[in-house]
């Protein structure tokens, strides 16, 4: 970002830059990936100093009192861009009076080249004048890093004992932007500038600038309805319309009325900002143009039979015929991307051998890719094989992460098949699944825009112009319309929003979605029949978890296995533990079998965790052990961290942490019973014929997902997910007994509430059995 290659630079020069400073310009300067940088590796390019170079004790120990140094005598909300510029120029740090480092000044120079800087005064004028401001700046304009700093110099939160919050939809972004801004401000991360994400709080008493996930701010609002700790709240990337951002907007719309001193900035990267303006009662809008070049758009004459194949063909065609410039291809998911990367590399090698093509470096990019590999996308394109030969280029094959949230310079060609994996939720069949769906027109425009960051580019849409106009919806559906709202409703209740019906959301969900959420929370005993929060609900809302998981955790002491359920809940809160590389699927499956528990996936996961924590694994080097066993070290490490956080909440709430001895014969049964207590609404019953199951309430035919480990024949299973693919699958399955289900949720398992005759009869028989046994016992 700091190394923005301006539109005026010639191609030749750009090349040189990428040789000399490409590394720096890429990963170093990209705030989103700053967390990946080790402190010592940046000895090239601009004179970088160690992060700890400003490690001198803070001169100004009382940040919450009147300002000193450069900012002495400043009046809040009455400063100018010139004031700020003078303070920024030093000599000492305006926020802690420490001497400023060389690196600070070097970064300052690049910061002042950012597009937003030119409009600093304009921004200040609007910010000072209005309580709410909508700010539009394209990715790369510098808004995420600079606007919060502009605010700091004018809002002076330290004088109020408050903070400026800036929300991000993604954890990684919150972390890395915070780190970048800490560098820019020449402070230690966690001091004046910090971040707060789920399960990790990197802030301190001196923090005045806090980057956080939108979900975290929402959680804070639960206990502090007016968000009194903040003097300004910036909702960044609002165009992404995450669930948490949408709820926050609804909430803040009420808070700003109660708190006239609170300022609110909505930042969006796309130009549909009028919608935000309208929602926020015609708040003023400031737009900063991005640095963009024209992008020529090509459509196919006919719809494509196979979009992946068409994409590969197009990429190779570009490589063979188009002048220098990197390629960005959008595909939908990890497997598809890895597969495409392999094929492109193979084909490109052949082109090099046979048609004297230039080198082509193919890099995958998706959320679950380890950071070190993600970083490869910022490497410079390969040099020609011989001086003056055909240019080398790089081809990035990405999910829609690269659509708005990442800035990759050098992209000149975009290949857009028009699909992405999108979450869908339908309350009627209670399915929350990722489905490959056509993108929206707005997304398509955003994708095309990626080609024009460096110089005029080309975007190849693998669909017809007619399809673009007719098949694509205008705007993507915001997450709130595509999600199960059970935890959101719990949060809203905790936020003190009692009138859920009239809560002013930008895009209110379908009433049925809300009904389903209320129903679910009622069965989980989190809400009573009036829809009011119960003690259980209040307790469950303390956990940053899905309500069903929270309830499972809370009730686990009753089953003498809260330690195990705590581990399991943590494992369910992180990405998949099992690594299954395409090249070694068989071996990976064999390794997984080592951990398999006949009762199913949850106990298998628990086996993995226990093995991971065993001295045998830890002593040998946990990382290597994971690698050897085809397990994700990162996921397990993360789970460990989540476990620690949840454990603290349990201790705080007085929940007992207990286990029975491993040798107890009901050790596993206890765990399965506890699972049933949380998952009783995600249950499938085996059909009378064959391997198929049926979801008990909604009567959907499902199969066990091929990844499922279930070594025993079980009539009843609880499942983690109902996945829609070409078939209906349930994934993450554990065998349970019907009696347990009836026991934990007698209301839910009243046979009369079931349509399917088979399920109804089975429940009735089980009920009779239980009654007989109960009577006999007495």
């Amino acid at each position, binding site marked *: 970002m700091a190394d923005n290659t301006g539109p005026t630079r010639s191609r030749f020069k750009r090349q040189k830059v990428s040789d000399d400073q490409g590394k720096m310009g890429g990963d170093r300067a990209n705030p989103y990936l700053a967390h990946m940088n080790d402190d010592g590796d940046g000895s090239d390019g601009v004179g970088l100093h160690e992060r700890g170079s400003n490690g001198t004790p803070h001169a100004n120990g009382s940040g919450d009192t009147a300002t000193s140094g450069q900012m002495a005598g400043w009046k809040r909300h009455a400063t100018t861009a010139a004031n700020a510029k003078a303070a920024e120029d030093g000599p000492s740090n305006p926020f802690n009076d420490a001497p400023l480092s060389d690196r600070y000044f070097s970064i300052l120079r690049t910061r002042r080249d950012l597009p937003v800087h030119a409009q600093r005064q304009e921004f200040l004028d609007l910010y000072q004048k209005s309580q709410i401001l909508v700010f539009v700046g394209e990715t790369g304009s510098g808004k995420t890093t600079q606007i919060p700093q502009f605010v700091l110099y004018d809002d002076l939160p330290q004088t109020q004992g408050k903070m400026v919050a800036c929300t991000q939809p993604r954890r990684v972004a919150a972390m890395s932007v915070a780190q970048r801004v800490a560098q820019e401000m020449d402070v230690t991360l966690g001091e004046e500038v910090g971040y707060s994400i789920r399960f990790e709080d990197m802030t301190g008493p001196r923090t005045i600038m806090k980057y956080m996930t939108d979900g975290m701010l929402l959680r804070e609002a639960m206990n502090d309805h007016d968000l009194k700790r903040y003097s300004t709240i910036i909702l960044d990337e609002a165009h992404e319309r995450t669930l948490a951002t949408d709820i926050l907007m609804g909430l803040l719309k009420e808070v700003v009325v109660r708190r006239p001193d609170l300022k609110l900035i909505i930042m969006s990267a796309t130009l549909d900002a009028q919608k935000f303006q309208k929602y926020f009662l015609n708040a003023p809008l400031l737009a900063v143009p991005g640095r963009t070049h024209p992008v020529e758009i090509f459509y196919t004459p006919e719809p494509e039979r*196979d979009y992946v194949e068409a994409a590969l063909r197009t990429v190779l065609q570009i490589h063979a015929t188009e002048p220098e410039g990197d390629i960005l291809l959008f595909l939908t998911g990890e497997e598809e991307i890895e597969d495409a990367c392999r094929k492109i590399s193979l084909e490109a090698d052949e082109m090099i051998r046979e048609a004297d093509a230039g080198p082509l470096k193919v890099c995958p990019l998706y959320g679950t890719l380890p950071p070190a590999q993600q970083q490869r996308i910022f490497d410079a394109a390969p040099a020609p094989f011989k001086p003056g030969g055909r240019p080398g280029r790089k081809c990035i094959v990405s999910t829609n992460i690269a659509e708005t949230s990442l800035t990759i310079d050098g992209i000149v060609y975009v290949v857009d098949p028009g699909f992405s994996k999108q979450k869908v939720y339908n309350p009627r069949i209670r399915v929350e699944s990722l489905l490959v769906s056509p993108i929206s027109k707005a997304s398509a425009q955003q994708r095309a825009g990626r080609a024009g960051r460096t110089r005029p580019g080309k975007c190849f849409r693998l669909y017809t112009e007619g399809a673009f106009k007719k098949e694509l919806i205008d705007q993507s559906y915001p997450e709130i319309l595509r999600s199960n709202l059970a935890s959101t409703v719990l949060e809203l209740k905790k936020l003190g929003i009692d009138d859920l019906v009239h809560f002013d959301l930008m895009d209110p969900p379908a009433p049925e979605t809300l009904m389903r959420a209320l129903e679910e929370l009622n069965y989980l005993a989190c809400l009573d029949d009036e829809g009011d929060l119960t003690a259980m609900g209040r307790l469950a809302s303390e956990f940053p978890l899905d309500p069903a998981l929270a309830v499972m955790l809370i009730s686990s002491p009753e089953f003498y296995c809260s330690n195990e359920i705590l581990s399991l809940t943590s494992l369910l809160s992180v990405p998949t533990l099992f690594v299954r590389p395409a090249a070694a699927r068989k071996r990976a499956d064999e390794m997984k079998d080592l951990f398999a528990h006949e009762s199913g996936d949850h106990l298998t996961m628990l086996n993995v965790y226990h093995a991971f924590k065993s001295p045998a694994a830890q002593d040998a080097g946990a990382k290597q052990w994971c690698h050897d066993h085809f397990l994700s070290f990162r996921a397990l490490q993360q789970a460990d961290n989540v476990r620690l956080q949840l454990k603290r909440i349990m201790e705080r709430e007085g929940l007992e942490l207990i286990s029975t001895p491993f040798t107890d014969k009901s050790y596993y049964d206890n765990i399965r019973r506890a699972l049933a207590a949380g998952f009783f609404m995600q249950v499938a019953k085996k059909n009378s014929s064959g391997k198929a199951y049926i979801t008990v309430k909604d009567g959907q035919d499902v199969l066990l997902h091929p990844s499922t480990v279930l070594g025993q024949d079980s009539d009843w299973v609880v499942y983690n997910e109902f996945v829609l693919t070409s078939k209906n699958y349930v994934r993450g399955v554990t065998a349970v007994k019907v009696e347990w289900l009836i026991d934990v949720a007698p209301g839910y398992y009243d046979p009369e509430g079931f349509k399917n005759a088979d399920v109804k009869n089975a429940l009735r028989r089980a009920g009779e059995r239980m009654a007989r046994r109960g009577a006999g016992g007495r």
Partner: protein
Amino acid sequence: MADDEDDYLSMTFDDPSSNPSRKETSLQRTRRLKAEAAERSRVPSKKERAENERVAREAALATALDASNKGAQMLAKMGFKGGGLGKSADARTTPVEVLMKEGRGGVGMESERKRKVREAAEAEEGLQKRQKVTEVEYRERARNEREERQAEGGWWSAMRVLEGFETGAEGATITQASEEGEGEGGEIKKSGNEEDRTSKDVVSLDRKPLRAFNLLYRPLIRQRREKEAQQRLRRELEVSLPTAREREDPEIDLDDKTALGTAIEELEDEDAEAEGEADAELEAYEALTFAQRLEKIVQELRTRYRYCFWCKCQYADEEMEGCPGVSEDEHG
């Protein structure tokens, strides 16, 4: 029921199937278990399963949660009265549709495929429609064609009749000129078969130019001459084929050839002359329908020869007493 045992009308019967507590006999039980086992052992095919799955899913997706749902009741208690949530008037009332994508077809492929299927279906439908229309109009068209054929037949025979009259009345020269002394019209009347004519007759026939014939039956003459020319050609070809005998005597063959060749050339020239000239009069006549042409001849026969083509007889006077009328219909 227990109070009034005599009230048969209001008496109700227990539905045995709805009363699970009622004991079933061991026989019934065996039968039921057998039926259940049979049902269980039947493994549905993959396709069946997929189809069932899809149907069940779509049915469930199309069914909105109703007031029996606990959540719906809770929401109602919160003051929800239907419509959308929130404060904006255009809030959505139904969940976002779940669209399953199968395969790797590009954007627009599916609708393109559907469009093609639809178009094919429409084309098929259109074809059927057209066929139906044809069926309806088939009789009509067939009738028209039949009438046309009849009119054509009538026209040809009327021309012959007229020719007969003309040659009989004013064609004396032809008859005289003919070495056989046989009137052409007469011959036609006798046999109606022009195939019988020999090329010798034709060659020797006085070749009056086509235009000299009455326009009304000129097509007849022309057709006859064409046929004759063809026959002649065929015969000449046959003659010109070298037979074993001819090969023995090549000289004769050569002479014959020369002679015949000349003859053919002459004939061809004549034909070319006769038919090459544009006969506007004839063209206009042949542009008429057969029925119209027939009518013209019938009229001509009546006025000039007091002959009714339909009665097949010549009347004595102009009144043509006894003839029902001009048209065929009038002759029943």
